[in-house]
């Protein structure tokens, strides 16, 4: 709650928070404002924006409502971003904590696995995974997490290694605390803040990777995403550029919001930690 207050006080943090709140609102309102399938044909194809009050942002090649797509796309982007970040943070923090706390052979083995994953670019990993496992929302989320969990794992391990040597961990051993309890109650909560700050960056990347996958036609075909909208608009880029620009702006706003927030969140968490 203290961190939240500090976020609001900084202009960048407040702006990031506002952008993301807007996005969340759009995602939540999508089914209310645009009930029904956003992939359904709603009117004449290729209506330009601001000409028909029924379609404020126009329609695409098949006559689908672009505004409805934008709102539903926000839902997909947010869901994928948050889920992928959650999966990679949880997996990464656990692997990192175990590696840092156990040390020795366990640490070596786990960190070589992390190395192996890190040598392959995250997007390629996601691409390969989706091509093999087939395109569905869950697979896309897992595919993105596959490339993103190594960052949190490394950071968590580094934090654990430093916290493990602190006096309060020694004090916990001295009062006879079980090693599992020390790891979960003394070490993990104090190792987590910097790892959590990484979450925002992962959300931003996940949104971008999801869009790129959709753009390449590897997203879930049953839901609207900004990436698939841009891909769809590419064929008529010269005659109807708005079809790519509108979801593109959605992407820019989301990623901008996420990065602004991430930056300030890292700062706010760092100062909180620095307090004696």
């Amino acid at each position, binding site marked *: 709650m203290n961190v939240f207050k500090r976020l609001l006080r900084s202009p960048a943090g407040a702006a990031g928070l506002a952008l993301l709140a807007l996005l969340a609102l759009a995602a939540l309102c999508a089914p209310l404002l645009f009930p029904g399938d956003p992939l359904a044909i709603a009117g004449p194809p290729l209506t330009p924006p601001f000409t028909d009050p029924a379609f404020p942002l126009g329609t695409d090649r098949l006559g689908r409502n672009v505004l409805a797509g934008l709102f539903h796309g926000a839902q997909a982007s947010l869901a994928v971003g948050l889920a992928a970040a959650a999966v990679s943070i949880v997996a990464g923090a656990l692997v990192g904590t175990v590696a840092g706390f156990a040390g020795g052979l366990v640490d070596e083995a786990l960190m070589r696995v992390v190395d192996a994953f890190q040598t392959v670019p995250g997007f390629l990993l996601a691409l390969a995974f989706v091509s093999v496992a087939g395109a569905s929302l869950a697979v896309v989320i897992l595919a993105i997490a596959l490339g993103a969990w190594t960052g949190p794992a490394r950071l968590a391990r580094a934090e654990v290694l430093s916290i493990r040597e602190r*006096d309060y961990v*020694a*004090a*916990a*051993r*001295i*009062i*006879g605390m*079980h090693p599992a309890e020390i790891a979960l109650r003394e070490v993990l909560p*104090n190792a987590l803040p910097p790892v959590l700050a990484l979450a925002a960056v992962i959300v931003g990347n996940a949104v971008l990777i999801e869009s790129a996958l959709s753009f390449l036609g590897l997203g879930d075909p049953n839901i609207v995403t900004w990436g698939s909208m841009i891909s769809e608009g590419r064929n008529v880029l010269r005659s109807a550029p708005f079809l790519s620009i509108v979801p593109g702006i959605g992407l820019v706003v989301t990623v901008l919001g996420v990065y602004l927030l991430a930056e300030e969140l890292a700062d706010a968490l760092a100062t909180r930690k620095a307090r004696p």
Partner: protein
Amino acid sequence: MSTPLLAVRGLSKTYRSGGREVKGLDDVSLSVAAGETLGLVGPSGSGKSTLARVVMRLIEPDEGTVDFTGQNLTALNGKALRAIRKRIQMVFQDPSAAFNPRATVADALTDPLRIHGLASRTERPRRVAELLESVGLPENLAARPVHAISGGQRQRVAIARALATEPELIVLDEAVSALDVTVRGQILDLLVSLQRERGLAYLFVSHDLAVVRAVSHRIAIMDHGRIVEAGPAATVVADPQSETGRALVAAIPRLYREAPQDA
């Protein structure tokens, strides 16, 4: 004397850093009797903190044994080690580093009670209040986060945590060195009166011979990982036999009540 409370025999510990070998501990033996304070003094890097941590089984020695009431601590592991920890506790130098940054005073004092099953859930708040009282703190401090109280209060909470399991020995590793001088005296008084009430034994580790002398029955002086001198406190200070002992005595700042002499 009968079996000492703590008997350390032939402890050695070598550190390797950058190809060089540093003797952290070199064949160290000492003993502490029940109810006694053994002061352990030495310059920085002499191995006194390493010894304290080996006794606490925070560091594993290369060689030697740590006998506590006849039981070899270095042979214990897992559950048996955690169980015996209740009888030997420790207070660290920096009270701000010795507590989980998220803990409240009550959390810090409840943990040892819970772990060793010393008080039922309903009895714990009362035990916490008693512990706070025994170190001269008001019981309404229990709800405060440890980071929100003063350094001197924090060190009292650290002592209360050490007392929670009613140990027979407390290892004090530079426990008053980070405190303000006016607070230091109060904490030393507290330690001495707790010893009188409960028959506690202390292993009092410090670089400051004057402070060690004030609270110790016996003093051992360490340098380069070895015990270079040991004996009754008054004797060691009045007539140090080792070079390190003489240097430590000479280095104690004297309070000059007259004008400094211009030499």
